[in-house]
């Protein structure tokens, strides 16, 4: 029996894809929105004609009490019980799974999977992939939940903070994190095994552990605003905001986090992420096709993903970019 066009479209939706979650929106709303648009796309596929059955209907002229000569005529009538208005749409619910979650305050790349690909998603979540974040911070205030929406707890000056100081603090933090990384990898540091693992970049915690920052640097510094770029493992967004807060404390000032933006989740970068107006079934299918083809090309290479840093630099908010927005845009392309 042929599968209906809707079912065939559903097979084409199997795979992982990523969307860009806007800030201020709970990830569940994003997931529900995607599910609704995919259902709309699936149910819009035209269904076949109604099956017909043969029924014997009485002739309208047959009179009462006819003992013989009652004529029944065969008529092929469509079976209304299979009509979509009676059975309901073909797909009423599809499982859309979410990869590493993003809390409501942050924005960025969110990996999703449809239907049977949820198993692949599970494996993806369990593997040790690093994630890239861009943190926007501002000196001078400290709040209770480390973000600019929280209640202000402390204010301080920041005039004494220079780029040098910041870089020194960041280097110190990175060193501490590197030590933690080596500790969690459960390997004796003096062995040959450790050397080989380090050479291949396989050092790191297996499974759940404390958040570890594998990379940390400052990409933009203009007091009171600054932007950091982090690569991390096993993190939560609140931990990252706390990092910003602690950096402020280390510099003997205070800092608050204005934005957390995930730019990369494993092999999924900002380039592949779908923005809100692209959350339709056809765009999602295209993204999944791209993912499948990229998986095939990456089969024999073990390289990590593209570092999206140079593009981020030109796109961050800054007051003096007004005149050179065209050139900035040119660089991105």
């Amino acid at each position, binding site marked *: 029996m042929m599968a209906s066009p809707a079912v065939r479209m559903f097979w084409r939706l199997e795979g992982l894809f990523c969307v860009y979650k806007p800030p*201020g929106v709970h990830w569940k709303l994003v997931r529900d929105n995607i599910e609704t648009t995919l259902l709309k796309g699936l149910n819009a596929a035209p269904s076949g004609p109604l099956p017909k059955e043969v029924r*014997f209907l009485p002739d309208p002229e*047959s009179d*009462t009490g006819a003992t013989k000569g009652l004529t029944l005529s065969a008529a092929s009538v469509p079976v209304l019980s299979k009509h979509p208005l009676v059975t309901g749409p073909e797909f009423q619910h599809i499982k859309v799974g979410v990869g590493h979650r993003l809390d409501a305050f942050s924005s960025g790349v969110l990996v999703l999977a449809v239907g049977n690909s949820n198993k692949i998603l599970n494996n993806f979540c369990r593997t040790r992939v690093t994630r890239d974040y861009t943190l926007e911070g501002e000196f001078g205030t400290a709040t209770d939940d480390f973000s600019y929406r929280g209640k202000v707890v402390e204010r301080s000056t920041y005039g004494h903070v220079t780029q040098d100081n910041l870089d020194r603090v960041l280097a110190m933090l990175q060193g501490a994190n590197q030590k933690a990384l080596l500790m969690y990898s459960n390997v004796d540091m003096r062995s040959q095994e450790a050397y080989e693992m380090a050479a291949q970049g396989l050092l790191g915690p297996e499974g759940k552990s404390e958040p570890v920052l594998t990379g940390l640097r400052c990409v933009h510094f203009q007091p009171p605003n600054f932007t950091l770029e982090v690569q991390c493992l096993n993190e939560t967004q609140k931990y990252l905001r706390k990092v910003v807060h602690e950096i402020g404390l280390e510099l003997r000032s205070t800092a608050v986090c204005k934005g957390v933006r995930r730019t990369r989740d494993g092999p999924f970068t900002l380039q592949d992420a779908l923005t809100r107006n692209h959350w339709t079934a056809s765009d999602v299918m295209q993204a999944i096709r791209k993912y499948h083809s990229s998986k095939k090309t990456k089969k024999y290479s073990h390289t990590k993903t593209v570092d999206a840093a140079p593009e981020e630099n030109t796109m961050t908010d800054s007051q003096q970019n007004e005149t050179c927005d065209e050139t900035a845009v040119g660089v991105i392309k």
Partner: protein
Amino acid sequence: MASCCTQLCLQCRRLLSSQMVARTWRYSTQLGHCTTVTGLPPKILNGPTVVRGDHTVAEARQRWKQQMFCYSDFTAKHLATEAKEDKDIEELSRAVDVAYKSPLMPIRDAVPVTESQISLDLDAATEFSALEEISDEEAVRIFVPSAMPPASLSLRDYVDQSETLSKLVQLGVNLWKLEQRPNVGSMLLRLNFNTDVAPRLLFLKEIGVDDSHFGNIITRNPFILTESLENLQARVNYLKSKKFSSETVASMVSRAPYLLNFSVKRLDNRLGFFQQQLNFSASNLRNIVARLPRLLCGSLEPIKENLKVCEIEFGFKENEIQHIVLSVPKVLAANKRKLTQIFDLLHNTMEVPHHLIVKFPQVLNSKYLRIRERHLFLEYLGKAQYDPNLPNYISLDRLVSLPDEAFCTELASATLEDFHLFQKTL
């Protein structure tokens, strides 16, 4: 035709005689006052139950009523449908076939039927072989009953046999949506198309509602089919007395199907409330109600809250509120939290003064994320200028109403890809 008839005989285990079939069709019209399920009588009367005489009719009626009560009482329960069906038929046959002796019928009267004995007597089946040749005439008269459960969770089991349901599907009513609502399914089944549904559809047609809207109206408000015709007429007369034209009334009914289920007193209360609270003239009020008829249907509490929010929290003056409501009545029915969020963005972040918001009230109706992203994009490009006195002014209505392409090329002078890339940096 003959070949498929003989095929049917091969499949059918219970053969019916011609007299039974004739009476079946006759009984269906007589017993139409109970339900319109025309397929039901043959099911009850099939099997070796053929008897002449009127007391079959009475028995059949009783069994029929019993079955319908079963449906209405036990709709939620899963009964052993086949068992029940067969049990009823066995009972009937046991009660009635004493008088009748038919050479064709299998022997049933000797066997007392109990709940456990569901299937046909196997001896009877072998005695009367399905491969026996019968004449074409008899073959034509065989009726194959369809398996219709006495109780079911879905209307699709009844749609083929029920005249009402089939006609409703042909009108475009979404039965699947309606059967999710409690008790609506059984109510629809109990309706008779000719006496209940048709007069009301004709009434709707008289007031000017288009035929193509019937499906939508009944899907959203199935209880319009149970409202009495005098009430419907009285409410339409009331609306006409308030000087709503007939086309307006027709469009209001199609867009807010629950409108005619409300009593005249309630409609009067609502109109009075709007007139008093907003100090509108009669023609303005008619205008708003015609454009958003669901204002008359829903509860008044959220509307009162929204008005208070506009007055106190946003700080609009009364004539400003009047103007906003007149141009965008949806503000009255909007979600209070979302409205506050949009206003906060407009007034505090984008620094748009009150009088400009009043001039373009449709911004209050648009999506928060849309306004925010577009505003930030314009700010990044240095073009976020909403003051009409200064050069390079961007009007709010164009900001929200233009589609993405037009917004990018006209207002922001950038490409759509730039806008998407910018969206990913927020």
